[in-house]
Structures are given as structure tokens and as C-alpha cells.
């Protein structure tokens, strides 16, 4: 499998996700600098977490206009799997590949802790091995928003990827860390080859992390 990880100034989860890809998928990803313009033939492109361009204007807004994103969008439109984690999710939203918006957490605080998510659609390349999983979030702007028409469209197309839930899988206000509408933690594009999620599966990918629930997302990509 040929894999690519995009690196922006301010990315800080690029190497973590590269290690997860190496260990779980068994592919050594090519690290692609944001000023590069082409990605030829890929089986997976990851837009990693961090604080690209210092989160100026809006998180992900600057990165979404960087030279490499044109190629990421072209690849996504051709059906190449593209996965954005945390800041990567914000970048994919700003680039128009995913619907909705990520606003400041309702608590107005940066939240860094473990949460639990549940897949809403397990028939996709990213989630076919997904179950209720624990993994960390670390963000200030993860409060997913979309207006009622967009939410209806997202729900009707099975585009919700993950929802925050409790240990029993119940989706409730108590298990919602950041105010996201309908507890949404991740969404797909219409054709389900683009995934954006706020939680960090690469930070829960081996036993030394204290939890390896995040592996199932990378394992799903193998099948």
C-alpha cells in the first residue's frame, strides 16, 4: 500500500501517524511537504493534526489554500482514501472536501483527554472494523456544526462517521466533550472515501499508549 502524510508548518502529529501507518498498515509513508504540488498514485493520504499556520484566521483556513491541497482534492475526487485527523479534519472542512464547520469548544477551553466514540456507519473503508473505542482528543475548535438542512443530508447519506458516547455506547449530552451537534466526532464525504475526525486514533495505536483502540481504523483500511 502506498501511503502519504502531508506536513504543514505547525503539523505535530505527522510523525505519530506515520508510525501508526508503518506499524499497523505495514507501509512506510512518504512525508509530503505542503509546498509540493503533486501526489502521484496513493492508496491513502493522511492530513495530520497540529496547528498548521498557527491556526491563523480559522483553524485549517490557511492550510486549505496551500499548494499541496489542490492535489489532495484531486486525489479525493478520484476516490483515493483521504483521512484528516484533528487539525487535518479542520483543513478538509476548510478545503470543501467535507461539510459543516468546526467551531470553538462550547466550554471555551482546550480539551485534552480520553473520550469514547462509536461508529455510526461500519460499511466504509475506514470503519469496517470499528467498534466502540477509547482515544484522546486534544483541541480547542472541535465543536462540529452544520445547519439543519446539512445535518439532514449528512444523516440521510450515512455520512456520520463517529459520535461521542459513554462506556455503554449511549450517545448523550454527558458524553459530548465539546458541544458538537448530535455528538458528531467525525464525518465522511458523500462517497465515503474522505474521513475527518477530531479524536486521535494514532495516539491510541499501541499498548504503550495505554490503549490501542485506535488501531481498528487503520486495520479497516487493510481489508
Amino acid at each position, binding site marked *: 500500500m502506498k501511503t502519504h502524510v502531508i506536513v504543514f508548518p505547525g503539523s505535530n502529529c505527522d510523525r505519530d501517524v506515520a508510525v501508526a501507518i508503518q506499524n499497523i498498515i505495514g507501509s512506510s509513508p512518504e512525508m509530503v511537504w505542503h509546498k509540493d504540488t503533486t501526489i502521484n498514485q496513493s492508496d491513502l493520504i493522511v492530513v495530520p493534526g497540529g496547528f498548521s499556520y498557527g491556526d491563523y*484566521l*480559522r483553524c485549517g*483556513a490557511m492550510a486549505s*489554500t496551500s499548494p499541496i491541497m489542490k492535489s489532495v482534492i484531486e486525489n479525493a475526487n478520484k476516490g483515493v482514501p483521504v483521512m484528516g485527523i484533528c487539525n487535518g479534519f479542520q483543513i478538509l472542512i*476548510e478545503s470543501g472536501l467535507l*461539510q*459543516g*464547520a468546526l*467551531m*470553538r469548544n*462550547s*466550554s*471555551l477551553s482546550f480539551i485534552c483527554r480520553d473520550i469514547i466514540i462509536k461508529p455510526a456507519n461500519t460499511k466504509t473503508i475506514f470503519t469496517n472494523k470499528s467498534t466502540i473505542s477509547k482515544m484522546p482528543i486534544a483541541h480547542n475548535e472541535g465543536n462540529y*456544526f*452544520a*445547519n439543519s438542512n*446539512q445535518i439532514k443530508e449528512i444523516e440521510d447519506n450515512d455520512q456520520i462517521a463517529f459520535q461521542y458516547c459513554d462506556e455503554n455506547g449511549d450517545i448523550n449530552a454527558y458524553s459530548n466533550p465539546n*458541544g458538537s451537534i448530535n455528538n458528531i466526532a467525525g464525518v465522511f464525504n458523500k462517497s465515503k472515501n474522505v474521513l475527518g475526525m477530531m479524536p486521535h486514533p494514532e495516539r491510541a495505536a499501541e499498548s504503550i499508549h495505554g490503549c490501542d483502540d485506535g488501531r481498528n481504523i487503520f486495520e479497516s483500511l487493510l481489508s
Partner: protein
Amino acid sequence: MLAKIHITLKKDVLDPQGSVIANSLKSLGFDNVNDVRQGKFIELEINSNSKEEAEKQCNDMCEKLLANLVIEDYSVEIEN
């Protein structure tokens, strides 16, 4: 020309920062503050032959980058 661009959250989008600011103003004794909406103000200098052209370009900038139209509204004002 000078363009002054205001970007604010849409009316139906909750603005938790605005609410906190409103509460703080009330605690300072400004009891008549009903609602606060926080936004961004961007000033930019632009070369253009006409105000209309400059405004059109600024609208385009807002649609493409400066504002997130899912959650934000914008307004553009051009000064000579």
C-alpha cells in the same frame, strides 16, 4: 482604497464567547447589555479603479477565504 470587512457568526449559531463577554459586562454594572456577538474585523488596502470593483473582489475574498459561510456572515465597506 481601504476595505473594511466585518465577519460575525450567523444569528442562528451559538456564540459562547459573546455570552461570556455579555456576562462580564453585566458583572461590571452594564445591566442594559442584552446580547453580545463577537466577530472579526479585517482592514485591507486594495488597488482598484472603482469602489464597485473593489467591493466585488472583497466579497469574493470573503466567500473563498476570509469568512466561513457555514457559520459566518460578512459585510464589506469600501473607503477611498
